[in-house]
Every structure is written in C-alpha cells, then in structure tokens.
C-alpha cells in the first residue's frame, strides 16, 4: 500500500471533511463510546493526519473501533465528523485489498445467535 501526500486529498474527498478545521478540543473523544479501547482516540487520529502521519493512522487499530454512532460529528463545535474520516480511512485500506476480518475469525456463537444486521454492517465496514 502506497501512502504519500495525495492520501490527504483522498481522505478529505471521501469524508467530505476538512482536516484543518479541527482545533483539538477533544469533544469527539469525550463522547466516543469506544474511546476506552481505541488507540489512537478520535482527536489524536485527526492530529496525526494534520501532522502528515498518514500511515501511522491507516495502520492503527483505532480506525476499526468506530461503531458509526455519530456522537463525535453531532457534538463537534467545528462541524468536523470524525466518523466520516474513520470511514474514509477504512475505505482506503479496504480498497487496497487489505481485509480487516474474515468469517473464520468470528466467534461461532454469534453466527448462530446474533441478528443479521450485525454481520451485514460489520462485513460492510470491515471487508474488501
């Protein structure tokens, strides 16, 4: 996977967000329900992109923990939606044919028990 300066344009276009709009207040991270397990957290993720450390974020585990709950975008005082940025970052990785999960990795008890909705959503967000 080639990561260079053009990736910033890709992330901004795919997400519809302007990275320099973020002034690092941390409201997104404060409201994020999965921030306790997310590394880097939403505000740090945007900071990495602002500093040009694209591969550090694209290769991180953090972008895969966004549950698309929309709290960050709803509460951002600058109108930046980190959920859309995470979606763009995941899409770039997946379009480079690097899948995040496979069916074999999923706990079998969920395959029988959990609602279809969970699998459709997860496989849309996590597979090529």
């Amino acid at each position: 996977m080639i990561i260079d300066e053009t990736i910033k344009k890709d992330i901004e276009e795919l997400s519809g967000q302007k990275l320099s709009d973020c002034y690092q207040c941390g409201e997104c991270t404060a409201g994020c329900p999965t921030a306790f397990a997310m590394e880097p957290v939403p505000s740090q993720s945007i900071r990495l992109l602002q500093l040009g450390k694209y591969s550090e974020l694209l290769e991180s585990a953090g972008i895969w923990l966004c549950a698309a709950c929309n709290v960050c975008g709803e509460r951002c005082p600058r109108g930046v939606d980190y959920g859309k940025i995470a979606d763009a970052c995941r899409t770039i990785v997946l379009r480079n044919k690097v899948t995040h999960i496979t069916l074999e990795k999923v706990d079998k008890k969920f395959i029988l028990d959990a609602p279809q909705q969970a699998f459709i959503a997860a496989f849309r967000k996590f597979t090529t």
Partner: protein
Amino acid sequence: MTSFAYYPGCTLYTKSKNLDLCARETAQILGVELKELETWNCCGAIFSTVTDDIANQVAPIRNLIEAQKISNKLVTLCAACYNVLKRSNLYLAKAGNETYRKRLMNFLDTEYNGKTEVVHYLETLKYDIGFDNVKAKVVKSLNGLKVASYYGCLMVRPSEELKFDDPDNPVMMDDLFAALGATPVDFPFKGECCGGYILVDKPEVATKCAQTVIENMAASGAECVATTCPLCQYNIDNQQKMMSKQYNLPIFYFTQLLGLALGIDEKILNLNNHFIDPKPLLKQKGLLQ
C-alpha cells in the same frame, strides 16, 4: 383504513419477528394498515458515509422506489433501516449532488428524485394516529411498569438529517409509554451506543459499551427496557450474561409493550424469544396470567 407502505427489513423476518408482528397487529387495532412492499431487499444495515460509494446506495434506493407503488410515506421499524433509508434518500436529493444522482440512476430501472418520505413507526403512532388515540385503545394499562426507553444511536443521530427528536434527550418513546400507563424512567444514556456491529470484531468492547448503558438504566430504577433496534436488543439482552455484574433486566421491543397494552395475543408477543425472561416481571405486575 389508512394504508402506508411498510418495510420490515432482513432481521425482522428472522431473529426479531416479535418486533415486526406486534407492529402489524397493533397498527391494525389502531386503524392503520402497514402494507409490506411487494418486493424488497436488505437496506445494507449501515449507512456508508463515503462520498463516492454508489454501490452501497443502490440497495436502499431500490426500496424507496418500490414504496412509491403504495404510498409516499414508507414506515420502518428497525432503527438501522430507518437510519439507512432516510439518510440515503436525503443524500440523493441533496442540492449539489446531481452528478452523484445521475451516476446512481445508471444502476436503477426507475427514475427517482427522493420523494418517498421515510418515517419510523413511532412517528406514525405520534403524528398519524396520535398518542391520545393510542391511549383510548388501551385494554391493559401497563400499571406503573418502570420502563427505560432506549433509543440508541441510529434513531437520533445525525439529528440534522433525521430530525427525529432531541439527540441528547429524546422523549417520543417515553411519551408513548406514559400514554400506555407505564412510568417512563429518565436516565443519562438514552442515545448512547450499545457497541453495535463492533460485537462481531471485538465482542469485549461491545459488551462493555452495553454494560455502561444497562448500568445506568438499572441505577435509575428501571424494571425493564424498551428498544427499537434488533442489534441493541441483542447487545443489551443476550450479552448481559457476559457482563461483570448481573442486572437481570428484561429487554423488550417497544412494539411488544404496545401490544401488551392493546391486548394482542400472547403468541404474537412471543415473550419466549428473550435471554432475560420477562414473564416473571410481567406476572408480578399483574400484566400476565
């Protein structure tokens, strides 16, 4: 009888039949027919926010075109279907998205400009039927049952697009339960995420999210919970066994409690399809034989 186009979605045909069947039955009692689309496909379960993602928008838009054969209004029940169908529709109709719309139309047989109005059954109950008229049909008052209304993410956000209710303090379901004779319980995490589809990849993270929500409901005095989303239902019902503390809180679909108050058949309520058995609580409250 007023008829509205109705979209059940994939999960309501299998794992969450009680959410679906109780809605159809209660609508009938309230003088509204939920007319299922003749053909439909899965909405995709999650809205793709990626601006050039035409492929994932075809499925939801096909359903919106199909709805036109029945009515301009399309009623949904599952929070995810509501969120995906409504947002896909708005994105297509948004000013400035003409090029996107033209590209999308290459994959569809019928021209479409966004005229189907996507609503949730709760909105049908509030605006088309009216909670006062629902109240008038109650045969079994919920008798002060302390219900925590759990809206989750997909009903309330993004509020600018969905315009469903206050994203930080939604009350539409609470008002419905008050009309049914229950006591709505206020708690701080009405719109907090249950962990959603993260369950599939990192179950321990999803379960911790769900526990945060349940803990707050229990601490606020809730005896049970009502939800609109099959995934919320699963994460806060079935996953209770995985939590570090046991709350034993029954998790209903809002249509089950509505059905109970309107006196629908116990078979349709399907109270056996729960991990935490709700029957002892309902018996204790005199709501079940």
